Structures are given as structure tokens and as C-alpha cells.
């Protein structure tokens, strides 16, 4: 990121201009990481378990990122490669972060050995 301060401000401002697509994709990447950690902590505390929680996580993050880009930032998804290209942005590392946080919180709060 060339100007992190400017990017940070634009990330929270509705309908910001994004002349460099890479910057918005970076915002999507890091937002997904943060969201993954938050969801991991929430699912661990609740606790939510099983494959349903994994599907729910995938659904929430994919939808949230797409809504953020298309509705909040009013960008054309096609310019970013479409719905699935955006859904893939940082998916694996965020998914791994979610699993790590979820497993640690869940096992420290609810599991008895």
C-alpha cells in the first residue's frame, strides 16, 4: 500500500474513489482477516460447532465482502473479476485464521479433557 493513511480513510468512507484496484483488494484482504478472527472468537464463545458453522462462516464472509465492494463502495464487481474472484481474495489464509481462533477459543472454554 503506497499511502496506508489515505486507504484507511477511504475504506471507511462510503462511495470512495479507488483509482488503484489493488488498494481496494488489499482492504478486502485485511477486512476478511479481521472478520475471520472476530467470527472465530464469536463461534468459539457461543459455541457454534460442526460443519454448519464452517458453512456459515464462508457465507458470512463472502457476502460481507461482496456487499462491501458493490454496495458500500459502489464499485462494479466485474472490474474486480466478478463475485467469485472477490470471494477468493485472501480466502485460504482467512479461513485458516478463522479455524485457528475458533479451535483455540472453543477448546479453552468448552472442552474438557
Amino acid at each position, binding site marked *: 500500500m503506497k499511502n496506508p493513511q489515505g486507504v484507511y480513510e477511504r475504506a471507511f468512507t462510503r462511495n470512495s474513489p479507488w483509482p488503484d484496484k*489493488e488498494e481496494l*483488494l488489499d482492504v478486502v*484482504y485485511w477486512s476478511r*482477516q479481521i472478520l475471520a478472527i472476530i467470527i472465530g472468537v464469536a*463461534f*468459539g464463545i457461543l*459455541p*457454534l*460447532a*460442526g*460443519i454448519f*458453522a*464452517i458453512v456459515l462462516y464462508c457465507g458470512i464472509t463472502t457476502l460481507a465482502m461482496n456487499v462491501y465492494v458493490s454496495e458500500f463502495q459502489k464499485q462494479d464487481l466485474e472490474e474486480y473479476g466478478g463475485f467469485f474472484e472477490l470471494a477468493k481474495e*485472501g480466502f*485460504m*489464509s*482467512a479461513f*485458516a*485464521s478463522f*479455524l*485457528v481462533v*475458533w*479451535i*483455540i477459543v*472453543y*477448546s*479453552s472454554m*468448552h*472442552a474438557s*479433557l
Partner: protein
Amino acid sequence: MLGDSLLIVFISVVTALLAEGLTWLMVYRTEKYQKLKNEVDKQSKKLEKRKEALGESAASKNQKRRLNLEEEKLKNHNRDLSAVRMKSMFAIGFCFTALLGTLNSVFEGRIVAKLPFVPLGLFQGISHRGLPGSDFTDCSFIFLYILCTMSIRQNIQKLLGFAPSRAAAKQGGGLFQPPQATNK
């Protein structure tokens, strides 16, 4: 259990930093790598822009041929870049296989966490490796370590600016692609 899990997270942060440090020493700081990386990034972006421009209009045969030539050139550069990285990948692989062996013996038979899900059959071999019993929600050291590494290594690379650019990643290419002949 929490202590073990946090220790594993800490170990993977340290090993990821170590791996990136080693790669920086052996690869990232070399002139050859920097030159190739700049070349690949520049060409990937150029190619992407050209593809977008051509996508809107019906491309002539000549334009398509030029595009193919540039794609081949980029693939060759990508292959060279992967070859440069290979050297450090081997060194790191060797160090971490030894480290993993040691850590495996330290955590032998220890349940480091309780999984909130039952992993698919394919992953049960890793998640339950070396553990007694048949409760597949028991988590082994190696499973948590792999997950931590997947998450932390990529984020560290991105933070330090060592991750390959999106355009270059999108164009693909790598060491295992057959070399392309550039028709001149």
C-alpha cells in the same frame, strides 16, 4: 490445553519469521530476484491491460499473436523467478523438516486442542496423528501447526511486501511449466 495451543501459535509465528528472514537473505535481497520480480509485475499488468482492451473489440489475428507472444514471455520470466526461489525453498524445507520432527516428538500423543467439528476423512489422518483413541475431535500438534502456518505465513509475507503481486499470480506460471519457445 490453552498453553499448548498458544505455544504452537508462537512457534509458527517464529518459524514463519525465520523462513521469511532466510528467504530474504538468500533470495529477496538479490539483484537478480528484484530485477525479475519487477519485470514480471510490469509485464503482468501490461498484459492484463492489453487483454482488457482487446476484450472489448474483436481482436485481429496479428493482435492475438502478439498477445500470445507476450504471454509466453511472461511465463518464461515467471519460471525463472520460481527457479530463483527454489534454492531457498529447499534450504527452508530441510531446516523445517528437522524442526518439525523434533516438535513432533515433544508433542507426541498429546491432545493440544479440541476441534469443534469432525474433520473430513481425508484430514483425519493429520488431525488425529499420533493420538490415542478414536475421538476425531481431538486435535494433534501437526494439524494446528499447519493451520497456523497457513494463516500466519501468508499474512507476514503480505505485511512485509514479499507476496507475489496479484497480476503476476493471476497470470500463473511457475517452475513446473514447460518452457515456451519465444518466436522472434
